[in-house]
């Protein structure tokens, strides 16, 4: 059956591959899971949201153009700037680079798709639905109005009684699912689905940037998600986490938000810097200088950016010594930034630079971002920050960084990769005019806005009088913003013209050296008819005819095996061939899963909690359905992959991508849990109205039950994957049953402990304890499901001594649950003893 002799006829090979990889037409498009299509959807949707955010920006500037303007009242203005910030940050910037990464990574790495195509699709739908909730709120005039960082207590129920704040919390949390999904998937893809031979030191820099960004997302988003959930719980059920009268603290929200919010800015910047490092060498016509320096800089930057969050809180009354830590860390990021900056300039200086259109936008980046970086250093200086914090100086700074550090590189990327997306080259270029309009308009708007802020204009005020001397500054800013808007309109027209009427582009029009240019243009769903092997950082220069050879099927996997969609997996570091990864075809199931997830979120939003519970259960059920009929019922062992080499299927190796997915998901989960525990400790040490009125004496029996259950589950899970046990179905199923029972016992124990918490609305201590227990209880409940699922898989014949992937994933979960469960018990037993005295 297996046709391993390379199909000599490229057309026939293409037809075979196309048949299994294609997305059906018509309504079938809704079933798309392919990275090229889903990536494109992310990008287009993000640009639509950019349009919405841009219109909101124009409303702001129209309102502020003249003093005492009666155009928008404060109620509307507050919604407009909140939504502008929210849309730009969450619905435009993040999804745009996620889409770009999805589209590009497999092609650059020499793979046929991302590691988890269905997860991409599910993430896309979550993004679309969550974003839609926010936009519907805006259209109905119910949009959030507390600013994009939603400070409590202003966003608490007392001061924002309407649904507005809930729309933000629910909509954004929904969208964050897609960010976490993307993070997991990007890491797994970069780790595993590279072309054989592409060791980490031969990886394109863009992949390094995305790898680090994805890790930052993995650790950066959970604090925000936890904060949002706590705030929503406070708003809906009155559990006080942020209410100072009952032992909560508004500063907890600020810490959780900025613990996310500052890394977020670098999460947006790094992919754009990745674009810089990819495009710049092409236009400098030489390899980038300082590859390893750049890798080191990105990692340093990622870590440092997690140590800066308090520079958004320099005015909340923190002691100088503590501020000094954050001030120092904030200035320290200048170093890795400068290394990259000078690596780029050095590359240009030692190369033969060409001023093509994308390069023009890159120069725009240099100009605008340099200035944003310099004002950033100023803001890191504590005393200066006290003056300009929350003024238009900060508004100017953040736009210099975000527009300079994200928009300009992304516009460059648009012009650079458009021929790849569409196979078309521009006929006439409006791009240069668009560039100058955007560039001049931008600087006109924001350069003098620094001065507006220094002259004392706070941000987020809907108007001003003519006494302060801000009129002409604001008028110039508004004029500039309209010039910029015309520039963006022209850019849009230019892109539409090129997409619809461009002439046929030739292959690799810029003379690039990365693998994405070895595909056809536009690329087929499977990218490569056969997969390359890589020997250097510039695979396109090594083998000139590589594109043709691959199309002829002369690389790896140049055939179709039993109608399966296959790509190769490698060892992380060395890039040695390790496994054959089987990927799923088009399916509607991600869409359906996202729909029931939407039922959950809308249920919470409208306070139909029964509906929400149904939505939640349905979501879990749907997610389990993803694996139905998926897997092998017999061991396959080594399979030929072409070039005379062999590799086992991913179900039979330890380093399968889905194994990684679970590990990474648990990292994110652990970060969320740590944020929760941090919250509890923080309140205890810092918040007013502590110690609490009552200290809990958690029941010993319930605690013992929980400990015993957790330990049994973790032990049983370990046994179930021991080689000797795995080999015998009844034994492994027995251990899985023990794991299920253990989790069930733990669940019972934790529920008993939860019921013993007296009225959690009384004090933050009780509320935090309750939520901590609920968090673990939920994990134990899911543990029962996972263990049961393992039994089902085993019964259905998908498990053997070699095919233990399902059980190993489950075992990770059980071990993790035991860990967080024990920590929770330590905290609720130990804290009152340590702190109570």
């Amino acid at each position, binding site marked *: 059956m297996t046709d391993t002799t390379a199909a000599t006829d490229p057309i026939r090979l293409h037809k075979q591959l196309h048949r299994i990889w294609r997305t059906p037409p018509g309504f079938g498009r809704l079933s798309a899971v392919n990275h090229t299509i889903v990536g494109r959807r992310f990008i287009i949707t993000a640009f639509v949201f950019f349009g919405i955010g841009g219109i909101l920006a124009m409303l702001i500037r129209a309102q502020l153009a003249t003093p005492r303007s009666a155009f928008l009242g*404060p*109620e509307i203005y*507050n919604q407009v700037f909140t939504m502008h910030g929210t849309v730009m940050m969450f619905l435009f910037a993040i999804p745009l680079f996620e889409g770009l990464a999805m589209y590009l990574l497999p092609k650059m790495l020499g793979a046929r798709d991302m590691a988890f195509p269905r997860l991409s699709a599910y993430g896309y739908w979550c993004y679309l639905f969550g974003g839609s909730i926010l936009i519907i709120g805006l259209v109905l005039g119910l949009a959030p109005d507390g600013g994009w960082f939603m*400070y409590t*207590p*202003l966003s608490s129920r007392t001061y924002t009684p309407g649904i507005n704040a809930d729309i933000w919390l629910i909509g954004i949390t929904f969208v964050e699912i897609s960010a976490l999904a993307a993070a997991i998937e990007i890491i797994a893809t970069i780790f595993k689905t590279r072309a054989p031979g592409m060791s980490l030191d031969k990886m394109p820099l863009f992949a390094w940037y995305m790898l680090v960004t994805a890790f930052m997302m993995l650790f950066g988003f959970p604090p925000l998600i936890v904060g949002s959930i706590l705030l929503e719980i406070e708003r809906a059920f009155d559990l006080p986490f942020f209410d*100072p*009268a009952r032992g909560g603290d508004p500063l907890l929200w600020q810490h959780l938000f900025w613990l996310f919010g500052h890394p977020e800015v670098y999460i947006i910047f790094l992919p754009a810097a990745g674009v810089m490092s990819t495009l710049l060498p092409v236009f400098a016509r030489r390899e980038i*200088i*300082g590859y390893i*320096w750049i890798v080191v800089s990105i990692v340093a930057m990622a870590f440092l950016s997690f140590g800066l969050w308090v520079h958004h809180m320099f*005015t*909340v*009354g923190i002691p*100088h010594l503590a*501020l*000094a830590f954050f*001030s120092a860390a904030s*200035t320290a990021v*200048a170093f890795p930034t*400068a*290394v*990259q*900056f*000078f*690596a780029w*300039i*050095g590359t*240009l*200086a*030692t190369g*033969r*630079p060409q*001023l093509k259109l994308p390069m023009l936008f890159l*120069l725009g980046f*240099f100009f605008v971002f340099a200035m944003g970086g*310099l*004002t950033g*250093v100023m803001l890191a*200086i504590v*005393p*200066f*920050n006290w*003056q300009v*914090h*929350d*003024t238009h100086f900060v508004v100017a700074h953040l736009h210099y960084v975000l527009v300079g550090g994200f928009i300009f590189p992304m516009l460059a990327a648009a012009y650079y990769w458009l021929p790849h997306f569409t196979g078309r080259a521009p006929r006439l270029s409006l791009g240069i005019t668009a560039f100058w309009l955007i560039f001049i308009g931008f600087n006109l708007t924001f350069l003098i806005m620094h001065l507006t802020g*220094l*002259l*004392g*204009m706070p*941000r*987020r*005020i809907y*108007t001003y009088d003519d006494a*302060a*001397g801000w009129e002409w500054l604001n008028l110039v800013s508004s004029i500039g913003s309209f010039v910029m808007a015309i520039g963006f309109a022209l850019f849009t027209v230019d892109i539409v013209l090129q997409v619809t009427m461009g002439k046929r582009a030739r292959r690799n029009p810029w003379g690039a050296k990365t693998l994405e240019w070895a595909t056809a243009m536009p690329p087929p769903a499977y990218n490569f008819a056969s997969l390359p092997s890589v020997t250097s950082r510039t695979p396109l220069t090594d083998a000139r005819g590589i594109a043709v050879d691959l199309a002829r099927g002369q690389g790896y996997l140049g055939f179709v095996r039993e109608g399966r969609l296959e790509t190769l997996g490698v060892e992380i570091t060395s890039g040695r061939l390790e496994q054959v990864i089987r990927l799923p075809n088009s399916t509607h199931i991600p869409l359906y899963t996202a729909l029931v997830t939407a039922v959950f979120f809308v249920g919470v939003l409208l306070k139909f909690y029964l509906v929400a519970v149904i939505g939640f259960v349905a979501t879990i059920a749907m997610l389990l359905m993803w694996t139905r009929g998926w897997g092998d019922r017999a061991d396959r062992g080594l399979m030929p992959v072409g070039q005379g080499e062999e590799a086992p299927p991913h179900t039979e190796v330890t380093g399968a991508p889905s194994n990684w997915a679970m590990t990474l998901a648990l990292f994110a989960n652990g970060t969320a849990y740590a944020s929760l525990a941090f919250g509890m400790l923080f309140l205890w040490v810092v*918040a*007013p*109205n502590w110690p609490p009125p009552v200290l809990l004496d958690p029941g010993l029996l319930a605690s013992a039950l929980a400990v015993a259950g957790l330990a049994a589950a973790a032990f049983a899970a370990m046994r179930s994957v021991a080689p000797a046990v795995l080999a015998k179905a009844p034994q492994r199923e027995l251990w899985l049953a023990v794991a299920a029972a253990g989790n069930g016992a733990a669940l019972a124990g934790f529920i008993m402990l939860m019921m013993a918490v007296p009225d959690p609305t009384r004090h933050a201590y009780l509320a935090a304890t309750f939520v901590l227990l609920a968090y673990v209880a939920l994990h134990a409940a899911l543990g029962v499901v996972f263990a049961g699922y393992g039994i089902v898989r085993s019964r259905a014949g998908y498990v053997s001594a070699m095919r233990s992937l399902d059980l190993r994933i489950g075992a990770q979960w059980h071990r993790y649950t035991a860990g967080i469960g024990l920590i929770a018990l330590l905290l609720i037993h130990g804290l009152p003893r340590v702190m109570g005295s």
Partner: protein
Amino acid sequence: MSTLDTAGPAAASIATLWWVMLIGATLIFLFVMALLALVFIRPGIGRGTPASWWLVGGGLAFPAVVLTPLLIYALWAGERLFPTGDPAVAQVDVVARQWEWNFTYRNAAGAPVQSSNTLHIQAGQPVQLNITSADVIHSFWVPRLAGKIDAIPGHVTVLQLKADAPGLYRGICAEFCGTAHLEMQFALQAHAAEDFNAVLGGLPPAAAPDVNAPRGRP
């Protein structure tokens, strides 16, 4: 309202910091842009320079030379802007609420008196403000005199400021606090020493413990 038209030592020290940083930043910016321009005007100009020159020189040495003195200077300057905790300094309790400012003082007789939306201080004398909020977060800011500090429910934050000369200084709430955020403006009136006690004497007595907010922690 300008932070650059200073009328007190704190604002003046920060304005100096700003001018220093502005000059430094401008020079750096022009240098980098000039370098970039050169690269295009004279292609290949850097071909002789080894890569490490760019990375070590531009990426490490350059920021180190600029940032080390800046950071040390800023920490030193910041240190002097913190409240001294000197018991001789006059104290005013400030409570912000949607959307007004309440100030409680002790008059010459030691009795608490209060005013709303106008803060009276004595020119030439430092005053320590103990600031909190009765509802949401606000921020106390008189741009010509000093940096801002937030008013946070459940916490007391401290700001020390001084007006060099008598006069009226505009203050504004700098942290977004709801619909009437903009209207939450106030006046800071600095009086000459000889008038000050009379002004305080004319203020109404403070209504018993003003803060219904919970026990504050600094």
